[in-house]
């Protein structure tokens, strides 16, 4: 049914690679971070080769995630500016997740939920970097009261990040056809029509004007 010529490119190969580098570093960070967060999860430290290796590697992987994430975010931020339509879309989330999509505002390249995630991630990533550096005793020395705040906030930011990424991953699984956007880089016209109609129309206009 799907004509391959008609597939729409959503992400370039480099963007996809970058996305999965962020995802890989996130998984390693979440697992090693949880190992240090709750004693019941200390066994997860085995992933990186034990507690000491976890302590050594976790911050470096954090730097990788930070750099990788921001080089990706810089390419996407223009498409993530909030509009009145996005706010209306957010109000209609209960409809979206229960398959009643009539009357839901059309989404651009990203819908309101994705844009919220985008900006939440920006804030969390910055917060995690700053608090993480404050806690990185091997290389930095800061007043202990500052480190206490950093430790608490680092855990809080990380916890919100993990929840946000669970929602992100779930949305990718629930909305069929999304994962291939990040594996193959393309989506079908029907997918773009259903989920990002405004973006689809723009794509069509742009391609017909060529």
């Amino acid at each position, binding site marked *: *049914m*799907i004509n391959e010529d*008609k597939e729409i490119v959503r992400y370039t190969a480099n963007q996809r690679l970058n996305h999965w580098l962020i995802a890989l570093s996130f998984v390693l960070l979440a697992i090693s971070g*949880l*190992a*240090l*967060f*709750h*004693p*019941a*999860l*200390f066994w997860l*430290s085995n992933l990186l080769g*034990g*507690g*000491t290796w*976890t*302590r050594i590697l976790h911050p470096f992987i954090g730097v990788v995630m930070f750099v990788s994430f921001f080089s990706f975010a810089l390419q996407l931020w223009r498409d993530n500016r909030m509009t009145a339509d996005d706010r209306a879309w957010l109000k209609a989330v209960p409809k979206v*997740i*229960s*398959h009643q999509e009539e009357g839901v505002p059309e989404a651009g390249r990203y819908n309101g939920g994705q844009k919220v995630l985008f900006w939440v991630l920006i804030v969390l990533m910055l917060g995690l970097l700053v608090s993480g550096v404050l*806690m990185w*005793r*091997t290389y930095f020395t800061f007043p*202990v*009261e500052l*480190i*206490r*705040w950093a*430790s*608490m906030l680092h*855990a*809080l930011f990380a*916890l919100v990040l*993990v*929840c946000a990424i*669970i*929602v992100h991953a*779930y949305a990718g*699984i*629930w*909305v*069929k*056809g999304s994962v291939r956007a990040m594996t193959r880089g393309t989506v*079908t*016209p*029907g*997918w*773009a*029509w*259903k*989920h990002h109609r405004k973006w*689809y*129309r723009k794509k*069509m*206009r742009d391609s*017909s*004007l060529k």
Partner: protein
Amino acid sequence: MASQGMDIKRRSATTTPSPSVRNSPVQGGGVAKLIDVSQCIGCKACQVACMEWNDLRDEVGHNVGVYDNPADMTENSWTVMRFSEYEKDDGDLEWLIRKDGCMHCEEPGCLTACPSPGAIVQHANGIVDFNQDSCIGCGYCVTGCPFDVPRISKTDKKAYKCNLCVDRVEVGQEPACVKICPTGAISFGSKDDMKHHADERIRDLKSRGYDNAGLYDPDGVGGTHVMYVLHHADKPQLYSGLPKAPKISAIVSLWKGPAKPIGVAAMVLTALVGAAHYIRNRPSEVTKADELAAKHAAELVALQAAELAAEKTAEEERNDQRG
């Protein structure tokens, strides 16, 4: 860690009980070291004894203009004499010398903060001991300590501090600093006995005009197994910043307390809500109708574009004719 010699009461990052079948009630409130600051002459014999017994050698440092030497505790100097000059209201100068080191809190902030199982243990007699084999070098113990005691080694990145000579106490001996002290300023025994001894010392100090003499055994950390007799117990800060009301920071308590179960529950709940949603609501799938609608929309756009292009050409032609 085998604990044949001394039973373990608390173990870091461990959610199940420590072996407790042998635990008999600890006599006399556990052990305690009593440091009578009023009897200390600042000879630093305790520092030397500590280094000798524990086989520690610190780097030779530089004189920084005060008698404190080394200037601070390090991974190799588990105890340091801190000298502070205090001018009393009547103009008299007092030298307040405090032997700084681990206080062996009944509720240890280091143990609360430590993420590595068994890296910090508290023995039944109250001694708080670091087990460097399990230490991962994260420094959380430093973050948790209200007394700024643990030090991370620059070479092996492990945390070190006074262990109250646990290996000596285990075989019925007193810590090395206690044994060496030439003035009897440091004594060791059961906590109850040390409190009795402190009472005598305080009575003596009061009779000599130190009305505020008293025992430093702060409640905020559940009491300590290292206690001080201070001539100015109302102002412990005079003794090189000994905290007046030490307790585990509220931020650390939150981070290592309710944040842990609430945080993990929030993550698990988020995942469960997702799973429940997937099961209750079929996934969002693109239908044939969507593909068709998309096709029509694309055709419409192409048509409009073609019309627009045709109009444009027509207009250009008209312009050409006029020109």
